[in-house]
């Protein structure tokens, strides 16, 4: 199924083809290629607005996830009855925020990949409200990123590292 990528911002230049390639790789490792996924790249103004509306936090952030299937158990792959339900939901990437947070020795697209992986894990029911939940999410991210590192020659580390 399809990966719909949109770039709604002009704050940061974006290589769409490269980002798509990375996102497709993450989908493949997670085993969710059969599901539609939306990834929308937005600037600080937009992500802050959404953070305010949906999480009551008036600050920009790196990623917001809007799952299609709610109440999934952590890591559960949905088993839809209807073709239209082969949809994971949408991830909004705060690309301007991510760019600003990027350290000098970090590759921007590596950080985008790690952030998108984190967002995708949220769509699959992973959370990090408690230490136990965080452990599960961290392990999943680590597993996915290690697999990616094998194929892409990268050294990606989980976003949720250091959260607890």
């Amino acid at each position: 199924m399809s990966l719909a990528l949109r770039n709604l911002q002009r704050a940061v230049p974006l290589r769409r083809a490269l980002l798509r390639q990375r996102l497709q790789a993450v989908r493949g490792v997670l085993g969710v290629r059969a599901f539609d996924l939306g990834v929308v790249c937005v600037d600080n103004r937009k992500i802050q607005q959404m953070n305010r509306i949906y999480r009551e936090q008036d600050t920009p952030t790196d990623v917001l996830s809007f799952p299609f299937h709610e109440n999934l158990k952590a890591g559960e792959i949905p088993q839809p009855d209807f073709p239209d339900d082969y949809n994971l939901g949408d991830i909004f990437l705060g690309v301007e925020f991510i760019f600003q947070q990027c350290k000098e020795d970090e590759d921007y697209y590596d950080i985008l990949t790690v952030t998108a992986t984190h967002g995708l894990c949220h769509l699959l029911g992973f959370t990090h409200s408690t230490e136990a939940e965080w452990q599960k999410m961290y392990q999943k991210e680590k597993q996915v990123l290690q697999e990616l590192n094998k194929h892409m020659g990268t050294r990606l580390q989980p976003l949720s590292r250091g959260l607890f």
Partner: protein
Amino acid sequence: MFQLLRCVPRVLGTAVAGLRAAAPSLPRLQPASRPCARPFGLLSVRARSVQLPGLLCSGLHTEGDKAFVDFLSDEIKEEKKIQKYKSLPKMSGGWELEVNGTEAKLVRKVAGEKITVTFNINNSIPPAFGGEEEEPSQGQKAEEQEPELTSTPNFVVEVTKDGSSKALVLDCHYPEDEIGQEDDQSDIFSIKEVSFQATGESDWKDTNYTLNTDSLDWGLYDHLMDFLADRGVDNTFADELVELSTALEHQEYISFLEDLKGFVKSK
């Protein structure tokens, strides 16, 4: 007896959207040469015995035209007052602008390539859809809620490489809002069609293969968007083009109103 006057309300001070979206149609006027014995069925009065604007045959054309000219004078004044740019805004990125009436061309040369972006401001303002009129919020007058008109023309990007006889031509569009919906998750602009055309020819050849992006592989689509971005046609460019097109369209509109006023006034 004032039916005709009520058909032609004056709309002084109305925002641009209201003026251009809701211009009432003028009643059909009788030519000045029509015999003045009986007016056209509204009132049985003898011509010239009652000074009713619009009903006197010999004065009909002049009175209606005078009102039209006065109306246009006021509208031109109002349009100039709300004109955002007195001169056309500049595009960033070193684009040279050529304007020929309603058609504008932006040209840029970089690293052995020439990039030309062409657009026409005619029919470039999307219709203002809406269901029922929203109630004005507290403290806000109805006129203040009129949205600003923006011009979002389709634009054609031609890329030619030095010494080549063909140009890669990409037809680009701004998203069209669905009726009653604000689509804030569309790309700022999209590529609709791609083809090769011979350089130097003004006519688009139908016999050249044209790639329609509706069912295009999205990976290929993203490469095309990256290709354009590398040549300066990115989201910043698309936003600035809207500003330029809107300014040009408004300029042309005011110019048209002035020409119309002059035409109606002339004997």
